[in-house]
């Protein structure tokens, strides 16, 4: 009888060990992201950019439109850390204020694309059949026009300005989100928890919004991060050819366009805004790559 182990004896080894805290999946993603130094670097830069944008009035040494015609074309010096432009405006201040415009364009354009694209993609994926075909054909048509040309076309029709740039760039990005969401929906649609939800009587809208979309967030987030980068680039490109944000708004692409005429003698006017764009895009790409690795289900240990 003594050789037969009782249940309480079997349970002994576990007694005294602390219970492991349950980790939410998002905390797990954050933990993995933290390990990626490059991604953290990117995230830090984006946070700095946000701070610059929000507190521009306090951080920038001058206003973005303060002309000082006696101080034109100055190269970097102690009074103007990045020099001045052809109107004597401080370039550093303009770059700081420009971050506001760039972040606005980036996030709003991506939001437009995500909401429209996500809706279209989930409808196409969930209902399938001819509706799916029809929606995807329209996406193909949008994709046949290279991004910047589509944006040019839309802005030419709607007129220049910040709002229309956001709409134009947003519309151009709709197909990518539509495809991503559709692919997610297709893979989730036939799973059992969806069947269960249907059995309980959830209507289609509820199923899509409460069950399918939350489970498709990973690729959407990665695409969104890279999407903000592309939106900023497109907006800068549009402003560079005079179609986007109008002067005296200190958009980085417009600053590049302005400095172009003086490139021979005053190259600092083009170097610094371009550097600002590059650092922003670089940081967003690092973050996007890091998020993709952190969210990759295959790497789950």
């Amino acid at each position, binding site marked *: 009888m003594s050789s037969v182990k009782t249940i309480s004896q079997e349970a002994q080894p576990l007694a005294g060990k602390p219970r492991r805290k349950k980790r939410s999946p998002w905390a797990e993603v954050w933990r993995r992201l933290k390990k990626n130094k490059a991604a953290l670097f990117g995230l830090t830069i984006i946070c700095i950019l946000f701070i610059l944008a929000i507190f521009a009035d306090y951080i920038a040494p001058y206003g973005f439109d303060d002309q000082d015609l006696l101080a034109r074309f100055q190269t970097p010096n102690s009074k103007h850390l990045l020099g001045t432009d052809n109107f004597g405006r401080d370039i550093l201040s303009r770059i700081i204020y420009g971050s506001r415009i760039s972040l606005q364009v980036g996030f709003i354009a991506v939001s437009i694309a995500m909401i429209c694209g996500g809706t279209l993609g989930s409808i196409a994926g969930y209902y399938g059949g001819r509706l799916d075909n029809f929606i995807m054909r329209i996406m193909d048509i949008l994709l046949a026009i290279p991004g910047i040309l589509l944006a040019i076309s839309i802005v*030419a029709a709607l007129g220049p300005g910040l709002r229309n740039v956001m709409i134009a760039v947003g519309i151009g990005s709709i197909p990518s989100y539509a495809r991503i969401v559709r692919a997610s929906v297709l893979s989730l649609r036939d799973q059992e928890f969806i069947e269960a939800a249907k059995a309980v009587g959830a209507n289609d809208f509820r199923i899509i919004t409460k069950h399918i979309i939350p489970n498709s967030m990973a690729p959407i987030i990665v695409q969104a991060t890279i999407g903000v980068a592309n939106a900023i680039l497109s907006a800068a490109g549009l402003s560079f050819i*005079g179609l986007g944000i109008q002067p005296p708004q200190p958009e980085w692409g417009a600053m590049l366009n302005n400095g172009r005429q003086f490139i021979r003698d005053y190259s600092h006017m083009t170097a610094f805004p371009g550097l600002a764009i590059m650092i922003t895009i670089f940081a967003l790409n690092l973050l996007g790559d890091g998020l993709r690795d952190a969210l990759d289900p295959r790497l789950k240990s």
Partner: protein
Amino acid sequence: MHKYILRRLLLLIPVMLGVSFIVFTMMYFTPGDPARIMLGESAPEAEVVRLREELGLDDPYLVQYVRYVKNAVVHQDIGRSYATKRLVFTEIASRFPNTLKLAALGVLVAVILGVPTGIISATKQYSLFDNIAMVLALVGVSMPNFWQGLLLIILFSINLGWLPSSGFDSFKQMILPALTLGTSSAAIITRMTRSSMLEVVRQDYIRTARAKGQVESVVINQHALKNALIPIITVIGLQFGYLLGGAVLTESIFSITGVGRLMVDSIKSRDYPIVQGGVLFIAITFSIVNLCVDILYAFVDPRIKSQYK
């Protein structure tokens, strides 16, 4: 095989119609009265009304669209430039070779720089070469190509005086624009090639080839590369489209007489028929390129070939 090509050709038509529909709609809603713009501000009202009737500008939306498509297909007439009064088609077609040349050179630069770098990066993963290549690729992707063009001009034209900064006739003149267009594409292709090769190299059939004692270079070049090529070809095709769009900015910077620069100038002078005509032109070219890429797939990917045997 032929069925595959035919199917893809037929699919092209609805997409083209769709693009023309979008372009026409943009035109239709652009502010301004085309007849008034063509005749000028000081022309008498009666003449403007007459021109509107002649051009059918007061007809319903769909009637005008159908007319637009008919004109485009039958007479190659997609409108007239407000500025020069010549057919949009002739204006664009005369400049198109330059744009095509530029985009092709860009793709060439991108592939020559990108594919080998990606392959070496993949085979020597985590080495110094790989790390440097990946950082450079990331920088390349992050740099706006119009800024890069300006930087190249500052460096090579202004400071060093080695290369000219405008024109597109001599070989020397083509170097900077091609580099500008090509390098950000090269960065994307490098990353894509590397990740595609890495995926392929992990496959079992590569392990088998190595286990059989095959020479490493053959393993890479004949087995791995062929299979890795498919997504790479997709990316190259997509890049061509991106380059056709990117040519717009590059042509402006380097003063190249191409469709892109024509479009930018027309935007500034509000010559909208040219703008929209240019978009249509480039979209059609891009679709044809994608079609060629799809046909190329059928030759490279035996799975597609066998489907249509």
